[in-house]
Structures are given as structure tokens and as C-alpha cells.
């Protein structure tokens, strides 16, 4: 497919990898923010092309992974109600809650449906006026315009039986939370290309300056990632810390203005709980003003049991880039995609699922062979 397959060309990838090898003189630790990027890196074996000086750590950019367990529990409770058609992206269904996942409650007879777009859920609400249709609106900035539009159209067309259970999170506050932690090992970032397609990249400029980290807006195909790494390494080697745009075929500096306007009309910024990371101030969206009537969290008040995380799961450390999936004793033993203990093993963007599916189970740990970034 055009604009896809050409960015998977092996010869071009080798050329870029060679350019990276020529540029590197010291060890560097780079974080790719988005779980989609993690999957490309692991699936395409990009780490094997890179010089051993470069360590890639995988970031928190997996909406399924960071959706708090309390909200999974709430989704399960709502989905179990007889009048409800509960709609979700497929990724969310296997995520373990305190005692059940959405799949479990579906197996018990709940009407849980996988949809491709929030507009499909809205369509279901129109065709089932006697049912309550709830859409599990999780995601980063990339998905916010779609969910904002579903709320806006529901309001515009008076679809009263449609509501959204929202867990919308934002990348820049999470980056700041990671960077301000003493445990942070990250020296440069590959920013999430599609998040920046919506929001642009001006908001990353103060972050790059304050924490002295290069931030390169990067796409999702192998050549995108290799070029993003090359640009980041070049900045690190030259002692620069700027925001650059590798993914210029899709991302403009100012982002997508009509999408930003719709987001601002429908959502307001709020503090959000991140599974594994805790609460981060001003790090997410909730519905504002007249759209609040479509908020499932308000429509279905719950007296939920206290949430219970698996004590063995180290998802929080993995999402911060402090541990890798194969550092976890439960990885591929007690925790598999069929029986996950935590969300990163479930999602198509989770680091644990990527390592499991693409065979990175026994790789050497680069951290052991290199001096730790703190001691550099």
C-alpha cells in the first residue's frame, strides 16, 4: 500500500542503521512514547540493527495499559446491566479488572460489542432507542477528536440513550511526570506521531528546553523509527535538545486545527489516574458543559468494590521504562495474552504483548552490559 510499504524497505533501513552506527560515539537511552512504535520496533527487530550503545526503552503510550483498574471495574459493572449495549475497541475486552474483564462479563451474557469507531456505537444508539448504548472512550490525543465528534453528534441529533465512559489521557503531562522522576533514565524521546498529527508539536518545545532532552516527532513504520532515532542521536551527540519533526508527511507544527477546536468545544482538562503511574494533574479530558449529559460515569453511579491489582504485575515499572517485560518473573509464565495479569500483556500496543508475540523472551538485557545512565 502506498505511503506504507515503501517505509518498510530493508535496504533503506540498512542505510539508516549504518548512518546511526557512524554517528554514535557513546551510550544513549531513548524512549519511544507510543506503544504502536514499540510494536514496530520489536516486530521488525530494529534493536538488532542498532549499535549496542543505543538502548530503547518503551514508554507509557498505550491507552489500554494506563486506563485505571477502577474504570475497568466500572465498565464491567455497567456492561452487566441488562438495558446496556456496551461498545469498546477490541483491545479493552481482555484487560483484567479486579475480578473480571469485559470478556468475562460478555461470556456471562452481557451485551458487549467491539466497534471500529465511536460513530458505530452512536449508530447502534440510533437503531436501539430502547437500550442504553455506552462507548468506552479511551485514548490519547489521537482518538480525542473522534470521541469528541461522537459526543457532539449525539448532542446535535438528540441521541439521549448514548453515553461515553471516558478515560482520555494526554502525552505531555506524562512525559513531564517521567522526566521529573529521580529514576528517569531517558535522554531523548521519539514523540508519538499521530498524537502530534492532532496537537502539533509546539507544546513539546518548553519540555525539551526545561529538561534538556531532544524530542523528535516520529512515525510508525521501520524507516520512520530509524530516521527518528538517527535524528535524536545526532542531537544527543551534538549536545542539542530541540524539537524536530521526522513525520512531516502527516504532522504540521500547529497540528490539526479543526480537530483541536472540536476537542476544546466538547472536552475540558482534568486530573487523571494512570494505571501504574498514579494520578497526574491536568493529564486528561472529561466532557464539559452541555456534553456532560452524555457522561456514562455520571449516568451510572456505582458502588464498586475496592479495586485490586495483581501483586505480581510490574506494569508500572515497565510503563516508566524502568524495567523491560522479560525482567518480570511472571512474564510468559504466569502472564500470557490468554491469561494476562496486567494490561501491557493484552493490548496490541502493550510492551509485554509485543515481546511475547515477537519472541523477545530471552534477549540479553542491555542495561547489564552498559553503565547505567545515572552513572554516565
Amino acid at each position, binding site marked *: *500500500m502506498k505511503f506504507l510499504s515503501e517505509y518498510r524497505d530493508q535496504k533503506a533501513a540498512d542505510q539508516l542503521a549504518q*548512518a546511526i552506527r557512524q554517528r554514535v560515539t557513546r551510550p544513549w537511552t531513548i524512549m519511544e512514547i507510543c506503544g504502536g512504535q514499540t510494536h514496530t520496533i520489536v516486530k521488525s527487530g530494529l534493536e538488532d540493527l542498532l549499535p549496542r550503545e543505543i538502548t530503547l526503552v518503551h514508554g507509557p*503510550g498505550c491507552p489500554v495499559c494506563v486506563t485505571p483498574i477502577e474504570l475497568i471495574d466500572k465498565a464491567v459493572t455497567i456492561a452487566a446491566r441488562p438495558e446496556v449495549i456496551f461498545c469498546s475497541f477490541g*483491545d479493552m475486552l481482555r484487560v483484567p479488572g479486579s475480578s473480571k474483564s469485559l470478556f468475562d462479563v460478555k461470556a456471562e451474557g452481557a451485551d458487549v460489542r467491539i466497534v*471500529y469507531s465511536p*460513530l458505530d456505537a452512536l449508530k447502534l444508539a440510533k437503531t436501539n432507542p430502547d437500550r442504553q448504548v455506552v462507548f468506552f472512550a479511551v485514548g490519547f490525543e*489521537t482518538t480525542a*477528536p473522534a470521541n469528541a*465528534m461522537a459526543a457532539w453528534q449525539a448532542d446535535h441529533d438528540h441521541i439521549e440513550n448514548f453515553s461515553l465512559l471516558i478515560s482520555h489521557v494526554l502525552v505531555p503531562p506524562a512525559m513531564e511526570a517521567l522526566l521529573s522522576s529521580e529514576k528517569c533514565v531517558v535522554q531523548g524521546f521519539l514523540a508519538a506521531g499521530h498524537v502530534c498529527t492532532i496537537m502539533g508539536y509546539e507544546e513539546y518545545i518548553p519540555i525539551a528546553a526545561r529538561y534538556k532532552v531532544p524530542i523528535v516527532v516520529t512515525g510508525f513504520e521501520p524507516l520512520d523509527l530509524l530516521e527518528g532515532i538517527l535524528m535524536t542521536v545526532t542531537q544527543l551527540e551534538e549536545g542539542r535538545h530541540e524539537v524536530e519533526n521526522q513525520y512531516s*508527511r502527516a504532522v504540521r507544527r500547529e497540528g490539526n486545527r479543526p480537530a483541536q477546536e472540536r476537542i476544546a468545544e466538547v472536552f475540558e482538562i482534568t486530573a487523571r489516574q494512570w494505571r501504574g503511574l498514579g494520578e497526574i494533574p491536568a493529564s486528561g479530558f472529561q466532557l464539559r458543559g452541555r456534553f456532560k449529559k452524555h457522561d456514562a460515569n455520571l449516568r451510572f453511579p456505582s458502588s464498586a468494590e475496592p479495586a485490586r491489582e495483581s501483586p505480581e504485575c510490574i506494569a508500572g515499572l515497565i510503563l516508566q521504562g524502568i524495567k523491560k517485560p522479560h525482567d518480570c518473573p511472571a512474564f510468559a509464565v504466569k502472564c500470557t495474552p490468554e491469561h494476562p495479569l496486567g494490561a501491557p500483556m493484552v493490548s496490541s500496543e502493550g510492551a509485554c504483548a509485543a515481546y511475547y508475540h515477537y519472541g523477545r523472551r530471552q534477549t540479553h538485557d542491555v542495561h547489564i552490559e552498559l553503565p547505567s545512565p545515572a552513572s554516565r
Partner: protein
Amino acid sequence: MCLAVPGRIVEITDGGDIAFRIGKVDFGGIRKEINLAYTPEAEVGKYVLVHVGFAISVIDEAEAQRVFQYLAELGALKEELGEIPQ
């Protein structure tokens, strides 16, 4: 979840308010109806990046060639200087 796929617009239907602007988009043979509210500049024949049923960006075809131009320059440079030993 932030996955987005490029496809070519083959048809556009205006639904009154821009919020309802729909296009038929071809993804290597598979055609889907996609909301074009966020890409008012989209035209038939252009490629858009599609995420959960919405076009979020029109692909800049000149920028899409940039990495290949860079690699071509890199190749030409190497030929001039001779292969650099690794």
C-alpha cells in the same frame, strides 16, 4: 490504539454541516466510509491518514519523499568518497 492507516479518497459526500462530511476511502482495495470533518482541505484523489473512522491528516506527498531523497544523497556521497568502512 493510535494506529492510523493511509488511504485514497475516491468520493466525497457533503452532509450539510462539516461535522457530517463523509468520504469513501480506498485502503488497497478495501473501501470504507470515513468522516472528513477534520480535513476540510481533503479532495478526491488525495491520501488521508485514517484513525477510528476519521481522517486526521492529508498526507503531504512532497514530504513523504524526503527520507528517500536523504538516502539518495547519502548514497551519492558514499560513491564520491568511496565506501566508508564500518
